[in-house]
């Protein structure tokens, strides 16, 4: 046995294998870890050492509005996508197969379609003379075209469109694993449909809602492309603030400070999720 072990590269020899990962480790150290660390460092060293950048970010009403916009949009988008994704994921689990397969393919296709192409579609659809306004006028709901772009309405619609797949897929993964006989048991015990939904199906789907919801919320917080194209400069979100500070104002200290806040919130929320799931796993 030990001779065989010596002959086989995948057995024995403790420590083997790490060297294979080294090129990628070096790449990420040089072009990910160090640059991000340097950026964060600049938030407390530029223009002079101290916390003045953070004080400015927290103290000014202009920046307060950016934070408010960011958390508001991320929250609303998460809520809407959960409300749509839950029935969709539920339906996809139980629908006759060809239908479910076609709808699933469309979800995946939409997710991988170029982000700018999808955002452009909504810029055209939502503009003053766009199709949405024309349909609303022709069926008599409104008289004047609504302002749907360059504000948070446009951002919300565009973001819901882009985030939906990220909510449906985790939810689908969880609902698919639920044993149908549990719901049969609920029915046999006399539960009405509504009771079975609220007391059995929803609680069992909660891990999916939590992980999908968190992912959508976190991704929305740091989203750049859709908010800047559909929201305009007057309705800035956090990622746009970072880009503006660095690119237009060349204020690396402020840009770094805003990036640090985004980083802490993102990693903090993921840490909460890891904790939450480990706790759940532990109780089983």
């Amino acid at each position, binding site marked *: 046995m030990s001779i065989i072990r010596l002959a086989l590269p995948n057995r024995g020899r403790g420590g083997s294998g790490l060297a294979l*990962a080294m090129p990628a480790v070096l790449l990420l150290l040089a072009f990910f870890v160090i640059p991000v660390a340097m*950026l964060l460092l600049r938030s407390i060293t530029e223009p002079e050492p101290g916390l003045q950048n953070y004080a400015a970010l927290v103290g000014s009403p202009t920046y307060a509005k950016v934070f408010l916009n960011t958390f508001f949009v991320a929250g609303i988008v998460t809520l809407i996508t959960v409300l749509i994704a839950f029935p969709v994921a539920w339906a996809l689990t139980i629908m006759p197969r060809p239908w479910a397969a076609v709808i699933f393919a469309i979800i*995946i296709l939409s997710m*991988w379609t170029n982000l700018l192409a999808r955002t452009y579609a909504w810029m055209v659809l939502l503009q003053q003379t766009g199709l949405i306004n024309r349909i609303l006028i022709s069926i008599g709901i409104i008289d004047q075209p609504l302002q749907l772009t360059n504000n948070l309405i446009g951002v919300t619609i565009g973001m819901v469109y882009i985030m939906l*797949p990220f909510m449906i897929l985790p939810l689908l993964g969880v609902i698919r694993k639920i044993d149908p006989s549990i719901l049969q048991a609920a029915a046999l015990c006399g539960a009405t449909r509504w009771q079975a939904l609220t007391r059995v199906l929803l609680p069992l789907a909660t891990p999916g809602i939590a992980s999908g919801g968190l992912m959508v919320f976190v991704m929305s917080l740091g989203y*750049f492309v859709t908010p800047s194209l559909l929201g305009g400069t007057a309705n800035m979100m956090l990622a746009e603030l970072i880009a503006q500070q660095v690119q237009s104002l060349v204020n690396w200290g402020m840009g770094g400070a805003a990036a640090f806040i985004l980083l802490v919130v*993102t990693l903090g929320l993921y840490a909460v999720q890891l904790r939450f799931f480990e706790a759940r796993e532990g109780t089983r």
Partner: protein
Amino acid sequence: MLLDFRKLGAWKWALSAICGLMTLFLLLPILFIVALSFGSSRWLIFPPPGWTLRWYEELFADPRWIDAALTSAKIAVIVMVLSVVLGLLVSLALVRGRFRGRAVLRAFFLTPMVLPVIIVAVALYAAFLRLGLSGTLVGFVIAHLVVALPFSIITISGALETFDPAIEDAAILCGASPWEARLRVTMPCISHGLFSAAIFSFLISWDEVVLAIFMASPSLQTLPVKVWTTLRQDLTPVIAAASTLLIALTVLLMVIAALIRKGKAR
């Protein structure tokens, strides 16, 4: 009851309706862009008053669009190759390695996927300004590689986990050298994972917007950067034509990826 479609009763129709509306919501904007790209209205009136190929002609007549597309393709191919090679090496280390801290290393490799791209973009922008890589092909490749690598690692290590190393051992015991066994036994068996990783890495690089905006210079830009700068000026139908070609490419690559998965299942 609730997880049996036939026994849902009236709820069946409600669920189907929500599902149908959502599908239309996802699909119609994409079809809308495709239709507009062939429509004759410069003001993007829908339904279009007539049909034309004018926007495609304008697109192909403009060397800036062609250059941007070629740059995008060049970068995406280089990123694809590097991402698969590095992803394979990392996956071998993560799946087969016997060292401590593999879970930590795995988490480390996935962080670029988790962090908001804007942070990576701004950080690399600063670093590249200092290193003189700003606006260069190398800069683009490095930036795209950082975000493509996690997807490559997930896909390839997933394929490697389902492959029993005992088969590779058997080849070695039959007289193959370790590298021969890896190349001629393991590689063909995980090829579906390698191909998927290649397709996803290509698409991630090809579609990357945020990093590319920060890496681009007036003389070197990718297709998404060109779309971005044009979009900020006006909503010309030429973008609809460009978008349609991008959508066509995505559909093509997704079909290839699906065929690869099917081939693996067989």
